[in-house]
């Protein structure tokens, strides 16, 4: 059972522990997240449309076709 006291102490620690993350250990994670995120955004949204790096087929384009339209990307 969670008492009211425990809840408020949890909230207090959530605030207290929100300390900044040092740059040295975070950099590899942040860089890879940034790169993978951008590549995935490009693959879902753009590739095999206006430009293509994954080949001349339009299989990927056609497969995510509806999502591309619905997410606001120019499709064809």
């Amino acid at each position, binding site marked *: 059972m969670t008492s009211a006291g425990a809840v408020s102490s949890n909230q207090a620690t959530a*605030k207290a522990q*929100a300390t*900044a993350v040092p740059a040295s250990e975070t950099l590899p994670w942040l860089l890879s997240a940034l790169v993978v995120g951008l590549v995935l*955004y490009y693959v*879902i949204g753009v590739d095999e449309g206006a430009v293509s790096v994954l080949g001349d087929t339009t299989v990927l384009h056609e*497969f995510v*076709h509806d*999502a591309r339209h619905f*997410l606001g990307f*120019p499709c064809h």
Partner: protein
Amino acid sequence: MEARSFVLRGVLAGAAAGLVSWVFSLVFAEPQIEAAIAYEEGRGAAEEALAVAAGSAPAAGGEEEIVSRGVQATLGIGVGMVGIGIALGLLFAVAYTLLHGRVALRPRVLALVVAGAGFLTIYATPFLKYPASPPAVGSDETIGDRTALYLLMVIGSLAFLAAAVFVARLVREHLGTWNAVLVGGVVYVALSAVLMAVLPGLGELTINVVENGPRVSETPIPLRDASGAILYPGFDADVLYDFRLASFAAQMLLWGVLGLVFGALVERRMARAETSERPVAAAS
């Protein structure tokens, strides 16, 4: 908490947001997409009949279907929505990690603020200039220009948000936080308005002007014969409205779920770390 925890939670929250948006899109996007494709096919048939009547040879066969409509409308849109959810979750996690502990907001509030900023810059602002369009709306020949212009709007609004935050921090000392945020908002809106005014409308692209004369958008206008009588109607305004409204709502859902789930996951993790650390702290 280290960056690894944030990135993994970003992926998890992004995938959850993508799943929710997938279900939403099955109900609210697919009927509009089907209607748009039916319009496109009907118009294509009418144009071909016209061409044949004018003496051209009929086109050989229909368009080859690479991925069936059934797959596109179910699995395809699902992979797209979950994929974009994970992509945005990763980018979200990067921004969140850089801000965590550096601003006076508890994690779940900061997560919602970052998600709101992502929605505004990556989707909503570009949407005002170049709104999401169903199939049949948009000329094949302008895909290169349209993609470049759309991505320019996305990059521009991200840069403008950075500029707005910079200005807000600069004036905060003098004006206080509330007014500084308002000043930042004005900076963002003003810069975005200038970019939107400078960039061409899609109907103003050369290929479209040559074909249809200068227009604001690429939405198909009625097909007319020489006397001006309508042979095939223009694109249904209600279908276009419903599609765009659903697209906007889906992005609100996507970013909203991403921010809420991420914030909840981070706060739960912090509370758990605290309880497991407590006995050690007591002993030392």
